[in-house]
């Protein structure tokens, strides 16, 4: 196994790629009392259009999520089987990934084998597909009541003209009712190949016991080379879709979100992870809790809070700021203006870099958090981020200025979320 050293914090993640293409990552910590195993399939709710074996497919929204439910079904539900060996189990679908997990304290080998069997020895049954339809519809109804879910997908709809990330990933009621067994089998065959997965195991585990158990399981199993589906290139343009929108949800205090769409190609030749870190530092030093800007807005009772984030969505970086406010009309302009006129506060940024470095130490403590961090960096960066501390330590003010000068704020959207009228 290869050792990946997490630079600056003396942590090691072990990695091996098996003959069938499955990537295995293991972080072992003798102080933990428990362990977690997550099998990540790099296939999620956004993958609606693809070409596979020379045929083009357009599938229902919600297919990835429906498949996740069906994978957990069998004569006895997968979750119940894990319960029998003393472990907790769950599955989650996000826009680019479907994850199957166990958390336990004993029977590590049995947990690993049970998870692999559930995924690689799946027998699809028509009855299971019908059986899960009502629970999935209920999950969809539950999510429709969430103001956060509604705001998230509305914002995506405003920012992007073509990306398929503007609708609830569990699908609409109509989608869920139309999904059939053959569609789910197609998705399974196209995407559920070991070469499209990463098995991440963290906690109180023996590295060699893990890898030998996994290898033993696959010893008598053959896989063809993965015929990787070609995902549709949506050719998303740099323009936003809708500049301003008002929605009504279950919230009780109005919320304003202002977001800017920045093409990654503007930063050609730069390390994108560093760019995202710098943009987050810029936002934090202009909108964060230690800024005079926030202090003034809070003291004038114009806002209750301020949130901000810079993140990558396919070929774009989104810079987002928002707040809860009783005065949405007044605050909307204030946020837009501030975002367009951000400044570089050197002292503030340098202090934040120092404090963030301390936080990195804490990121390798809890086995669930470590598993999440590894799974997320594999999904969104395609690798384990082993140099976060180094990135922060190497950020210099002139470099921030260089990045700042490249930024433009032309493509901006404003989402106003108001309380539903009684």
């Amino acid at each position: 196994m290869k050792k990946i050293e997490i630079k600056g914090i003396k942590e090691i993640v072990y990695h091996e790629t098996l003959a069938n293409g499955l990537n295995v990552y293991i972080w072992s910590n003798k102080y933990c009392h428990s362990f977690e195993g997550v099998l990540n399939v790099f296939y999620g709710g956004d993958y609606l259009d693809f070409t596979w074996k020379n045929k083009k497919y357009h599938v229902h929204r919600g297919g990835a999520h429906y498949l996740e439910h069906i994978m957990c079904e069998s004569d006895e539900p997968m979750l119940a089987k894990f319960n029998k060996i003393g472990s907790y189990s769950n599955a989650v679908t996000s826009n680019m990934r479907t994850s199957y997990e166990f958390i336990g304290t004993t029977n590590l080998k049995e947990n690993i084998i049970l998870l692999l069997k559930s995924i690689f020895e799946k027998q699809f049954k028509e009855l299971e597909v019908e059986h899960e339809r009502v629970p999935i519809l209920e999950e969809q109804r539950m999510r429709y009541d969430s103001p956060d879910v509604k705001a998230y997908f509305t914002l995506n709809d405003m920012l992007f003209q073509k990306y398929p990330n503007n609708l609830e990933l569990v699908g609409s009621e109509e989608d869920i009712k139309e999904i059939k067994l053959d569609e789910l089998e197609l998705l399974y065959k196209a995407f559920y190949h070991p070469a499209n997965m990463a098995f991440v195991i963290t906690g109180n585990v023996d590295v060699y016991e893990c890898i030998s158990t996994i290898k033993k399981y696959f010893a008598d199993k053959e896989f063809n080379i993965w015929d990787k589906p070609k995902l549709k290139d949506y050719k998303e343009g740099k323009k936003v879709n809708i500049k301003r929108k008002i929605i009504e949800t279950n919230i009780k205090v109005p919320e304003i979100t202002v977001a800017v769409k920045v093409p990654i190609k503007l930063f050609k030749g730069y390390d994108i992870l560093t760019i995202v870190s710098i943009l987050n530092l810029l936002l934090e030093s202009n909108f964060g809790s230690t800024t005079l800007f926030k202090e003034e807005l809070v003291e004038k009772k114009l806002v209750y809070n301020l949130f901000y984030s810079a993140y990558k969505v396919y070929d774009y970086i989104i810079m987002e700021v928002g707040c809860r406010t009783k005065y949405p009309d007044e605050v909307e302009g204030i946020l837009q203006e501030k975002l367009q006129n951000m400044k570089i506060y050197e002292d503030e940024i340098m202090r934040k870099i120092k404090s963030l470095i301390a936080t990195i130490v804490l990121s390798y403590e809890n086995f669930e958090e470590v598993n999440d961090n590894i799974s997320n960096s594999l999904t969104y960066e395609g690798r384990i981020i082993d140099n976060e501390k180094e990135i922060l330590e190497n950020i210099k003010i002139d470099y921030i200025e260089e990045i700042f000068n490249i930024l433009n704020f032309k493509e901006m959207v404003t989402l106003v979320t108001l309380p539903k009228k009684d």
Partner: protein
Amino acid sequence: MKYKQYDFESFKILTISSEQFKNVHMEINFIDDVDNIFIPLRSFLINLMGYTSKIYPTKREMLIALENLYNSAYYTNYSRLGKSYISSFVLDFVSPRYIKDKKYLENCLKFLCEQVLNPNITEGKFDERSKEIIKERIHQNIEHYKENAFSYAFCESRKMLFNDSISGENINGTHEEIDAITNEDLINDYQKLFADSKADILIIGDVDMDKCVTYLKKYFQKKSIVEKQYVNQIPNKIKPYQKVVVDGGYYQTQLLVYLQFNELTNFELYAVSALYLQILGRANQSDKLAKYLRIDNPLVYSRGLRFDYANKYLLIYTGLKYENVKEALKGIDRALKEMENGIIDEEYFEIQKEKVMSNMTINEDDEEYLIGEYYMNMLFNRPLPLERRKLIKQVTIDDIKKLAKKFKKTLVYVLKESLDDEEN
């Protein structure tokens, strides 16, 4: 993991030192009897003390100081446990093992003590700006539960069931109560906090505890000595059964079934109930509620249980279509009946015992759980996890039957879905 208690005249320090954690979690807690305080006022005070202090008179200044302490986090918490109200002042900081600055540990402890001992009071008044900001926030918090269908149903049904007890009241109070709180009330309540409350300090992490105690002796002072037994339960009476259907403004119907109980033995409370809950609805798709609401008859997506010893009820809840409520109630009744009759496979029962203990082990990776258990043991004689494991091993199916018979269904609350939302 080393547990150690340090006793001083006016406070105790409970410590757990463990190399497992890179974070150090520290709490200064004050405990009161709810009959001796005005709850909304105390909640207001604790919120205010988490916001600013004499040394850091604005939130911004306080946060800069925390960033300089290597991104430590300071916050306050408050909770009611039966007739006891606990106010907590919390600091989370990176273990000094990773920090070169020799004064770092002392500075962290000094910071937390300062927040408690030196609130933002000038000329006998709390800073008016901070007070107004906190007031606005509490008003917002009081409304917050309406943003989520389950939270709304839960709060409204509790008010209905406990209309004659503080179990139904919001710990933040009402809008009217908050508006009526004056600066003078807050000053008086701060003095009362130090005079009438029992204080305890909790620390867990990879840190030299003897050094911590030395610094705390230097920076933390409390004159009054309070020795009192606190009660962690409200003596709510079992109500007559009622079923209520209320129109809601949400997409999904919420179904809540309350069961109340009188007295439980310690064995039932600390051991039997854990297994009862596991088999009824916490065994990850193999429990009775999963069987009758999801597997045999797919009516719902998720189900939940809330066992609240302090307010003496068990709550079963789920979200579903209104047209399926009747069927779901039948399923819940059937699951409860099987618990009463002890219809539990023996092998399955033993597996669930192991699972309950495994869950306890998983929790042992959580600092706050470990120190919280130690604190509850000291305050209310709640057995420590090791002792609870021994008790759990002794539970039989007959014990489950006996406990099940103590639960009486008293309220079925249905928050009916709204069908006139055009987006639905």
